[in-house]
């Protein structure tokens, strides 16, 4: 009888050890297999005090499309990086064509001023240079403080346009993040921020503005699709989602 009890105890201990081993193996396996790195999807954000819908605004009127302001830096030290390294070759043309297409859908006429026209009209050239100098201030400030207002009014009188569409992109080039194959994960440090702002040439008021933020480089397909989403009105977006 004693021998049988001893055998049973040994059996129970072995079973407990086996179960513990299996549990440990499961924990480790799930730990190392990794769940893949999820990059935050592009986010289209409303800029404070600029939450109006683009649809129906300035319908039938002309809007000047300014070339986008591009900034490419390295995440770790903000040293300049090239558009090619950032996967942003052709991004400026894509931004312009998207804006052209989306504004046309809303009934606006896009006006792009080429170099020849600028050279022919010194007043136009001077006004555009003023806007280019104040580009970053005009893109971000909610209160105008008359920044560039005189140049904008001059631009309106020369071209007959009602508003100007300014766009900017800031790409931070970092690493790509963890490897799903090894299971070791870390966040990528690259990001792309694209902004678009429609400013009235008569008052300098920001009529509409949207921002797109994505924790990846512009070469990612999701960035391109988010670019179009920026111009969609909330109502249309809800319709699309349904």
């Amino acid at each position, binding site marked *: 009888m004693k021998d049988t009890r001893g055998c049973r105890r040994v059996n129970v201990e072995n079973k407990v050890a086996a179960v513990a081993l299996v549990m440990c193996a499961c924990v480790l396996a799930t730990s*190392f297999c990794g769940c893949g790195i999820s990059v935050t999807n592009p986010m289209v954000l409303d800029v*404070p005090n600029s939450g109006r819908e683009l649809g129906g605004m300035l319908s039938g009127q002309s809007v000047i499309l300014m070339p986008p302001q591009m900034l490419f830096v390295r995440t770790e030290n903000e040293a300049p990086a090239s558009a090619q390294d950032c996967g942003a070759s052709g991004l400026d043309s894509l931004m312009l064509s998207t804006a052209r297409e989306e504004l046309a859908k809303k009934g606006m006429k896009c006006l792009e001023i080429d170099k020849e026209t600028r050279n022919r009209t010194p007043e136009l050239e001077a006004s555009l240079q003023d806007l280019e100098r104040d580009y970053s201030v005009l893109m971000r400030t909610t*209160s105008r403080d008359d920044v560039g207002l005189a140049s904008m009014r001059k631009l309106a009188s020369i071209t007959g346009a009602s508003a100007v569409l300014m766009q900017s992109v800031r790409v931070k080039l970092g690493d790509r993040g963890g490897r799903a194959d090894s299971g070791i994960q870390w966040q990528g440090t690259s990001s792309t921020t694209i902004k678009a702002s429609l400013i009235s040439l008569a008052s300098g008021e920001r009529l509409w503005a949207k921002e797109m933020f994505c924790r990846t480089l512009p070469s990612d397909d999701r960035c391109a699709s988010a670019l179009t989403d920026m111009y969609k009105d909330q109502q249309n977006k809800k319709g699309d989602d349904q």
Partner: protein
Amino acid sequence: MKITRLFVNSSFVLICTLLAPGCATPNRAILVSPDLQSREIGDVHMLPVVDARKDTSVKVDLRQKIMNPICSAMKKKGYSVISECSLGADGATPSEIGEMTPAEMCRLGPSEARTLCVIIVEDIASDRNTCKVEIVGFMLDKTSEEVLWKGKGIGNQQGQGGLVGIIVGHLTTLAALETSTDRLMQSLPERTTPKR
């Protein structure tokens, strides 16, 4: 049973090693005035941390987790720090402040201040078991609108997938915040002379 214990212990050590902060290469300042260590700068007015994140889904007490450790580190480095309660931003949003030029930033803070310290949180990205924190720091001379120091701290905490990652998820955020502030402060030179 011994095998089980050994297995558990070794896996714990392995996980801790993988969760430990990345290799500690010294962090250099992006910009530093050559005479910052010795020039007279008076008190440094530390403004409240500017939350210029686009994605604010991760909730963090910025004063407790970023501003206080930075103030302590600066004091250890020989700076006389005064914590301010207001940015004095005159209606500018945090996002706008994050994009200001140094000259524009010099208009922030109390008018009597000479030296300002502005800390901007650019991003906190947490993905259950990994976390990345990106902060930028400026020390500015309000009178000359000069940048005395600009540094960047990135805390990128690695994690594991699966159950372990889920269990220690919140710890990675805290560790990433700590790493980013440490890295930022590494790039700030120590004061070599008395402040006045």
